[in-house]
């Protein structure tokens, strides 16, 4: 019963958004190079995603690190599954694995992205 209250909100966000990026700044104005890199990858794939700016929410900023057991931002979730941070997303994009993940999970990609 010692679970932080913010976990409930995090689960709710993850449940509501097929592709969810916890990031610094917004998709239009990322405020960190690592967040910007993930936004860039998702844009190149033509994936619709929801960005959550953790900079404006200290409780969430700390909570997401504990929730994911991952101490850094950005963090990408696809259909409830934690995919990883910037390095992992970039690496999976380069090898084509990321596109595969989206396809397997039934997430729409833009044609000829």
């Amino acid at each position, binding site marked *: 019963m010692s679970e932080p209250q913010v976990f409930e909100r995090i689960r709710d966000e993850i449940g509501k958004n097929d592709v969810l990026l916890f990031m*610094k700044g917004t998709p239009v104005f990322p*405020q960190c190079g690592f967040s910007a890199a993930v936004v860039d990858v998702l844009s190149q794939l033509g994936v619709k995603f929801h960005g959550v700016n953790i900079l404006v929410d200290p409780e969430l900023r700390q909570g997401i690190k504990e929730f994911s057991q991952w101490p850094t931002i950005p963090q990408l979730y696809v259909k409830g599954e934690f995919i*990883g941070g910037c390095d992992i997303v970039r690496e999976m994009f380069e090898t084509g694995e990321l596109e595969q993940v989206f396809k397997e999970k039934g997430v729409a990609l833009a044609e000829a992205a």
Partner: protein
Amino acid sequence: MGKVATTIDSKLREAFSPVRLAIEDESSKHHGHAGWREGGETHFRVEIVSQAFEGKTRVARQRLVYAALKAELDAGLHALAMETLTPAEDAKR
């Protein structure tokens, strides 16, 4: 090597017995960004080649690295870009 880099180096060697380990201080590239501070040693890139990663997912590997450096992350190490490879994966590159 700076003080933080030296600590990272010794902790990663202890945790992973890497066959190759490279640590790069990228702090100066992030001048003025969030997490940057005077004196640097806030942003690092590490490349670790270790048998310890065999059979583990990317997420699991990076969690191991984060766990090994928890004290440093709590003390102001702000960003850790990493490549985590097994010797077999490294040989294929």
